[in-house]
């Protein structure tokens, strides 16, 4: 296609956007609403995923060795644990190490525990990092069945709940988004239909004098694209400014150190790009539907 022709198609598409007035506003409004929700949802989802995977990375299984076990038992247990296929990394931590860690983790209060140094109530332990965090449960089960194991610990519940919440949120959000995307596509295709009907005579003459079908179709694709892109302006602005505020003002007030938001740059810009792409997709798809149905060229 010649550059001049592209200019003409763009002009024609733009003219229709302007002339369709309220129809344009409703189609753009639908795209805007959809993309706002998509933006908020994506920001939430991707951050939740990040949090979940941060926690996942910390998942470890702690196997407490029976207090009556002697050195031989411990080394036997070590080799048994090592033979569990899902085990990634295996560390031994004596009860003295365990006590030190406990004392350190409690800070000043922990000093009270220093009294136990003579008669340490803790167990020797093996700390296992699974190859894949999801396999923590399988490892725990297997380890529990071994001799000389007193107890097996892992942050099972938090992780499981987080995964589950994440999953529900994903399905509900996806359902909502798909519904909204379809509504937006439908509204856009209706808007374009109006343009096609309004230009019926013009299209008839174009066909008569030998305009190619793609030449006739192009302005309608551009109109759809414009509607989609116009609809993405407000959501992009909202996502950029909202995330900026969240990242630079609220981050400090969030107390838990395992919650860390994805950095504003590049995340917010990637999100903006994605919103633009989805808007363009909705617009073009809406116009493709209309053109196929109503423009028998």
């Amino acid at each position, binding site marked *: 296609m*010649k550059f001049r022709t592209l200019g003409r198609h763009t002009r024609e598409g733009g003219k229709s956007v302007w002339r369709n007035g309220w129809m344009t506003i409703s189609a753009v409004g639908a795209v805007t609403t959809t993309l706002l929700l998509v933006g908020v949802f994506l920001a939430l989802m991707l951050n939740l995923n990040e949090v979940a995977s941060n926690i996942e990375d910390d998942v470890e299984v702690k196997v407490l060795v029976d207090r009556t076990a002697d050195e031989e038992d411990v080394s036997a247990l070590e080799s048994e644990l090592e033979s569990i296929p899902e085990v990634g990394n295996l560390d031994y931590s004596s009860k003295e190490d365990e006590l030190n860690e406990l004392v350190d983790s409690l800070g000043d209060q922990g000093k009270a525990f220093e009294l136990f140094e003579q008669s340490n109530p803790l167990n020797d332990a093996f700390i296992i990092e699974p190859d894949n965090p999801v396999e923590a449960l399988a490892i725990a089960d297997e380890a529990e069945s071994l001799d000389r194991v007193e107890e097996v610990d892992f942050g099972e519940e938090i992780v499981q709940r987080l995964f589950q919440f994440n999953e529900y949120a994903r399905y509900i959000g996806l359902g909502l988004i798909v519904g909204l995307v379809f509504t937006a596509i439908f509204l856009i295709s209706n808007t374009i239909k109006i343009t096609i009907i309004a230009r019926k*005579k013009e299209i008839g003459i174009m066909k*008569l*004098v030998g305009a190619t*079908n793609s030449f006739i179709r192009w302005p309608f694709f551009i109109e759809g694209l414009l509607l989609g892109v116009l609809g993405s302006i407000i959501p992009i602005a909202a996502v950029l400014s909202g995330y900026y505020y969240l990242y630079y003002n609220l981050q400090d007030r969030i107390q838990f150190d395992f919650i860390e938001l994805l950095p504003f740059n590049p995340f917010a810009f990637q999100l903006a790009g994605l919103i633009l792409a989805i808007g363009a997709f909705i617009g073009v798809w809406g116009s493709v539907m209309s053109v196929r149905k109503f423009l028998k060229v």
Partner: protein
Amino acid sequence: MIEMKGVYKTYPNGVTALNGIDVHIDQGEFVYVVGPSGAGKSTFTKLMFREERATKGSVNVNDYNLSTIKERHVPYMRRNVGVVYQDFRLLPRLTVYENVAFALEVIEESPNQIRRRVMDVLDQVRLKNKARFIPDELSGGEQQRVSIARAIVNRPQLLIADEPTGNLDPDTSWEIMHILEEINAKGTTVLMATHSQEIVNTIRRRVIAIEDGQIVRDEARGEYGYEI
């Protein structure tokens, strides 16, 4: 050059419009197509620019076989055929100049070419001084001249006119006929469906009469042949 062999046309609603047409028209001929309303004249002309497709038989126009032509070649075939209707079919918001230029813009001619050819053709139909008017500001005859200008601005080999004088008074009709004759004199084949006895009997040319979907008469320098 137009050649039809054993052409039948039945519409999806069951109406048979053409019932075995065989015809040969040479390049540069001027042909009237006459016959009662509903006899198949319109269908006959529509077959020649693939507005309609023959149900059976072969239709050849210029170098295209319209029975087998691929959909994507149709636009290029139409650039060699100009069409003029009784109701002009101009775009009301565009000026005379823009209406004619439109036909060249949509086939992606260069702006220089468009300017030159539109002015040439407006000169040919004697509307150069009305280039900036919109159709509503023109008389019926002038509007028909705009539509003729649009049809021939592509320099087609064939000009099809479906009752071009149907909406016009006698004086204006003659004006249109003179323009069509001039176009024909330059080598363009002109095919004109008409109900005007006066025109056919005055400007004597080949006459093809169609009745009930068949050619019942085909005479060089023929007459209208129907009572009014």
